[in-house]
């Protein structure tokens, strides 16, 4: 299996915030913490408005893992980046390092104290016993342990947000782009039109 990834199709996203709601509901995320959110550019400009759903992208070389002073992060065999809240000290370095603003911090006191970091788990829970009350309380739902995929992607009404094995969702996206004939610029030519392993090397190219 390749790595678990999210892919959001900006041509299809209608900014319904269904993914945000699904995430909140599935994981019972507290008020003030947004594991997923929808970002819209050119809001209100007809023809130019684009929306995209953003959460933790479960980076292959995650900067949050690199900067964490207590090394609370780990990556599973499926490529999901998770963290141990028992080790987290809520310092916020991961928030500064993350290009997507994925790490979230619940307000822990009246003076704006940061609590332990919370972020998208790809609905994969955490280090606690799978499907236990403790795991749900700390990390939310563990859908991968139930053979399911993240709630946000599975309930997306327009199927703009795809989640799962990177190779499989890239294939779905590629087929979609070829059918409609546009939208590849969002994720690149390779993702949309060609499988890298099948692409012939250009003539005269140096290795």
């Amino acid at each position, binding site marked *: *299996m390749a790595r678990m990834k999210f892919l959001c199709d900006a041509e299809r996203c209608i900014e319904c915030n269904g993914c945000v709601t699904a995430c909140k509901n599935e994981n019972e995320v507290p008020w003030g913490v947004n594991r997923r959110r929808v970002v819209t550019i050119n809001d209100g400009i007809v023809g130019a408005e684009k929306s995209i759903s953003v959460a933790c992208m479960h980076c292959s070389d995650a900067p949050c893992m690199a900067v964490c002073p207590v*090394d609370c992060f780990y990556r*599973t065999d499926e490529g999901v980046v998770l963290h141990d809240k028992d080790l987290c000290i809520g310092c916020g370095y991961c928030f500064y390092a993350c290009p997507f603003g994925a790490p979230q911090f619940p307000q822990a006191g009246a003076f704006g104290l940061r609590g332990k970091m919370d972020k998208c788990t790809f609905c994969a829970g*955490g280090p606690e016993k*799978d499907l236990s009350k403790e795991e749900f309380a700390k990390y939310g739902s563990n859908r991968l342990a*139930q053979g399911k995929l993240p709630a946000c992607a599975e309930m997306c009404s327009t199927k703009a947000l795809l989640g*799962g094995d990177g190779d499989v*969702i890239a294939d*779905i996206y590629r087929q979609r782009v070829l*059918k409609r004939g546009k939208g590849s610029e969002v994720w690149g030519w390779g993702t949309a039109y060609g499988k890298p392993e099948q692409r012939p090397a250009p003539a005269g190219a140096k290795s």
Partner: protein
Amino acid sequence: MRPVLLVVAALVAGVGLSACGEREQVIVYKQGKYQGKPDTKPWENDSAANPYPGSKWNKGDQTSWEAAVRTRNLSQNEYTRAE
């Protein structure tokens, strides 16, 4: 008298300084753990015992879990359902 005092002083110093040692900061990689952290792998769960029925796979069989998730994954492609 003096040797006894020296021995006591050495013992006190030894006990007192024992907390000043540095903790091991290198991750110890252990079988069945991710980067030193414990976590159950998804396919080690029993799909039959799942209170929220999802996909079916053989407990402990990574390949069957991946196949189940792949089937679920492909259902996100509405072209395969429409055509």
